[in-house]
């Protein structure tokens, strides 16, 4: 049983770069961990800290207005690259619960859904507006699959129905797979 996903209202943090890959989200040198906790400190490490490990004041996550923001808005094709689930773990540990882009890479999207980080794919126009309005307060309604802008416009986004159901009710997908034990056994007998 995981925590059900309830409605989310938050200001945004904006990273306009396109093709933000998982090596940017969490560089490989932090992957020698054997737990899933504590990765938020390394989120976007190479953009966030200078060579001496000091926070770069101009990087958006280091600015005071980013504190408490739970929605990340990014340029096209967010999360491309490796299959490391450490990427959504790091974003969640930092406090993010949703990522908004016009395109989100397949493996990252799957990994996010399994951890309660909602991947929100929007059209170019919505994305352009969001990229141009950092800090905008948005409301994400997962049940309705809508993202509501401060202008009052509610944009629908696609979400895989099973993952949506699991997130809304705090059902874990492994529990569902385990409930199919007899079907799996029957399949194995045909091999």
């Amino acid at each position, binding site marked *: 049983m995981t925590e059900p996903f309830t409605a989310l209202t938050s200001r945004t943090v904006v990273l306009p770069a396109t*093709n933000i890959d998982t*090596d940017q989200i969490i560089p*490989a040198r932090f992957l*020698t*961990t054997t737990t899933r906790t504590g990765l938020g400190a390394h989120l976007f490490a190479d953009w966030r800290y200078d060579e001496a490990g000091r926070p770069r004041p101009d990087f958006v996550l280091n600015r005071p207005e980013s504190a408490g923001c739970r929605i990340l808005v990014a340029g096209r*094709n967010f999360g491309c690259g490796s299959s490391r689930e450490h990427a959504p773990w790091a974003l969640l540990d930092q406090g993010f619960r949703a990522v908004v882009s016009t395109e989100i890479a397949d493996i990252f999207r*799957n990994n996010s859904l399994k951890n309660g980080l909602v991947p929100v794919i929007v059209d170019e126009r919505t994305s352009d507006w969001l990229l141009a309005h950092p800090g905008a307060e948005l409301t994400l309604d997962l049940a309705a699959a809508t993202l509501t802008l401060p202008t009052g416009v509610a944009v629908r986004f696609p979400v895989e129905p099973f993952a949506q159901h699991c997130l809304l009710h705090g059902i874990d997908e492994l529990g569902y797979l385990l409930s199919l034990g007899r079907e799996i056994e029957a399949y194995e007998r045909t091999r």
Partner: protein
Amino acid sequence: MALLARTLFEKVWQRHEVAAETAATPAVLYIDLHLIHEVTSPQAFTLLRERGLAVRRPDLTLATMDHSTPTRTAQVFGGAPITIESAARQIRELEQNCAQAGVELLGLESEQRGIVHIIGPELGLTQPGKTIVCGDSHTSTHGAVGALAFGIGTTEVGHVLATQCLLQRKPRTLAVEVEGKLREGVSAKDLILAIIGRLGVAGGTGHVIEYRGPTVRALDMDERMTVCNMSIEAGARAGMVAPDDTTYAYLAGRPRAPRGAAWERALDEWRALPTDPGARFDRELRLDASQVEPMITWGTNPGMVVPVTGAIPDHRGDAVYARALSYMGFEAGQPIRDRPVNVVFIGSCTNARLSDLRSAARLLRGRHIARGITMLVVPGSQQVKRQAEAEGLDRVFLEAGAEWRESGCSMCLGMNGDTVARGEYAVSTSNRNFEGRQGAGARTLLASPLTAAASAVRGRITDPRELL
């Protein structure tokens, strides 16, 4: 009822549906081979322990260690401690997890150890028609034999350990049709870089690619693996090549391939796998291989690629390009040729098989790398290492001034002690040129083993055809 013409992908997918997808639920897909490694499995084993679950099919699971393992002989075989303490812990944890779960582990000192995507085919475990997953995006490599193979996250690693199944929505299909003969000095790596240049880094998102056409049929297995390996760099989780006589000749006699009557039965099944005439793909891309030149990336994703004879593209005013240029320290319009190089890396699941090492050695034989260049040659597996040494390739590399290491992911992702220093330029035969991929601030140019070796000799980006 007339049989519907199906693609290779559809045949493998349908054969593995424990339950087909519905509007409300994804398909339940059975997994024939689950490969695990030290970096993306520990949290999955923890999940199983927390839930009191056993590994359902240890016999369909194989573990090895490659990502965080050192490549220096003393650290691998004792004599010196592993420099990165957290990596050493991760390695020990995999050993414990496998021992407890009864999963076979090709451990640090095993003769069969290597990069997970190199050893699967090498052992003959990677077979046509199988579903293969691993917590690593380059699992697409195994599609070269006609398997459906893709990378998964750690939660899904847990799902497969516990149930041998995955919940999946059916992807779309993309045919990449390649015609024309590859020119001298142009390799499979150049071909896939050219394909990614055409598709873009998100062009394959949501799709499984089938590489087809006479050029693909003419590739040997190592080359097909190089092509399928980088499918994910175009956003596609899986790439496949239909099995044929090249595939069967490669697999015959491998330690874990079927034998005797089982081999004959397997062959009958495998021969039915190729895409039926008239089967439809959701999308198609055509490419003329005879026009492909040696390719090299200039930017910070694998789609930012030009012929080695070309110039860095000029897209003034585009913020994405400006950012990549600034990271790489390049200027728009500059020729890529003759740019200075600091490091050359021959290795990774993309290009560390025996034929890749032969190709690099062909260029280095009787030559020396340029002054000031660091060159690492890292075989993809311990077996590749032994084979290369039996042919004397290690001598060629050492005499040329390169380092010869134990197998592993090494410098491809800089988490095992092998890194490129900040600001330095590395020509790498690996698969990702993302910012910081090979080390914080490192600048990566992806190329073939031939181009990498030629650039090591000259100390500058070099068209390998000048040295052949």
